[in-house]
């Protein structure tokens, strides 16, 4: 039971608990904050899986960008009311599907004999850099175009009609 295992369990429990709270709570703001905590726990998991660059990118983009976006959207769309949201009448179907899906994944995982994980690479950044700008450079450039298109689209959508 190394320190990594203990941390894995801690981050995993935090992630699952925050995700559960995020989808079950009736308050919008708490749902978004729970998402923020979930994303940070997942970043911790990434770090434990020797993906340190992915972990910091997760914090940079997801927590520092997407959660902020959601909070802005929340503040611009609730006009000051802080009422709890109504519950849902589809809880039964939703939880059934979730159990079935989760059960299938867990059963498939437990039943598979995975090969032994090779040792940890010395540092992920040089390899990641070589992959991104070497083998996967086309996808990398396309990602840039996607981001540009998203920025233009978002601007076009929220522009006030009077302008």
């Amino acid at each position, binding site marked *: *039971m*190394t*320190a990594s*295992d*203990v*941390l894995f369990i801690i981050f995993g429990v935090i992630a699952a608990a925050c995700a559960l709270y995020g989808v079950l709570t009736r308050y919008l*703001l*708490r749902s978004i*904050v729970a998402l*923020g905590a979930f994303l*940070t726990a997942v970043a911790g998991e990434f770090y434990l899986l020797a993906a*340190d*660059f992915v*972990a*910091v*990118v997760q*914090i*940079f983009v997801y*927590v*520092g*960008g997407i*959660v*902020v976006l959601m*909070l*802005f959207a929340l*503040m611009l769309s609730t006009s000051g009311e*802080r009422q709890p949201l109504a519950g849902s009448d589809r809880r039964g179907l939703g939880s059934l599907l979730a159990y079935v899906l989760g059960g299938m994944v867990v059963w498939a995982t437990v039943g598979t004999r995975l090969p032994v994980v090779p040792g940890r690479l010395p*540092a*992920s*950044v040089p390899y990641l850099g070589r992959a991104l700008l070497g083998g996967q450079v086309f996808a990398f450039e396309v990602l840039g175009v996607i981001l540009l298109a998203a920025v233009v689209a978002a601007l076009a959508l929220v522009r006030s009609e009077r302008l």
Partner: protein
Amino acid sequence: MSTVLTLGEGFGLGVVAFTLVGAITTVFVLLERRVSARIQMRVGPTRTGPHGLLQTIADIVKLLVKEDVRPEYADPVAFRLGPMLTAVPAVLSFVVIPFGAPLVMRALNVGIVYFLAVPGMTVVGLLLAGWASYDNYSFLGGLRSSAQFISYEIPRTLAVVTVVMLAGSLNTVDLLDAQKPVPYIVLLPVSFVIYMATTLAEVNRIPFDIPEAESELVAGYHTEYSGFRWSLFFLAEYGALYAAAAFATLLFLGGGNGPVLPAVVWFVGKSLVVVFVFMWVRWTLPRFRADQLMRLAWKVFLPASLVNLVLAAFVMMAVGS
């Protein structure tokens, strides 16, 4: 057993980081008051203790005994979480700063990106604090503060990317070795200027302090806070200020390198010079209006940092180093 030791070490480092930021805040509050006083041709606090050294202790005692007020309509979760989410990233960013070569808490291989990413979480805290206070001025202050922060994040990151291109590594400790011949302020002066200006905007210091301008928005997003919660915001501000100054000495001034004296002394000395420059700017310049500020970020700093990045890349390729 080693598990307990590793976890204990991690926890201990966290405590050390918090204590460090607390000590820094204590020193800098007093430093700011004395520096600002001298710039304004007066003396500043000199009566509490010898040369006013106990002034911050007195301030802390005053803050701790104040009543913890919460506005009636404030959302309790967000109101409490806001200050915490602003203070914790400021403390966390100290983890990768090497105070002289061996004294670093964790020499992460992605240290530089970590240092740029973790303060991004403070925006969440700012928005929560502004919104939860249920008061127009706080809300406006929180929105302006977050908009300013995320706008200036991009030019700042691009300026740091030029340094990373030269150094060839994202590890903060490698930056010290890479600057042994020449500190990067000589090689990348434009990046240095961009970094200093955008950092002032990130830390909400004048000339970019519209979010907390006393004459404009009462006190911005921390209007409704009192006592210990308010001091958390202060901790966040001065902690982030020193972290940014330390990062500037690391990136551009070759923090820790220098003859004769031990590396720690050089590092602390250089970073204090940078902090002094920040304070000097604050008490000399007037502040930008909110729209001037945003225009500056998107129409001046972003193109400038992009052009700087491309030029630096060209020069590096041409010189071949």
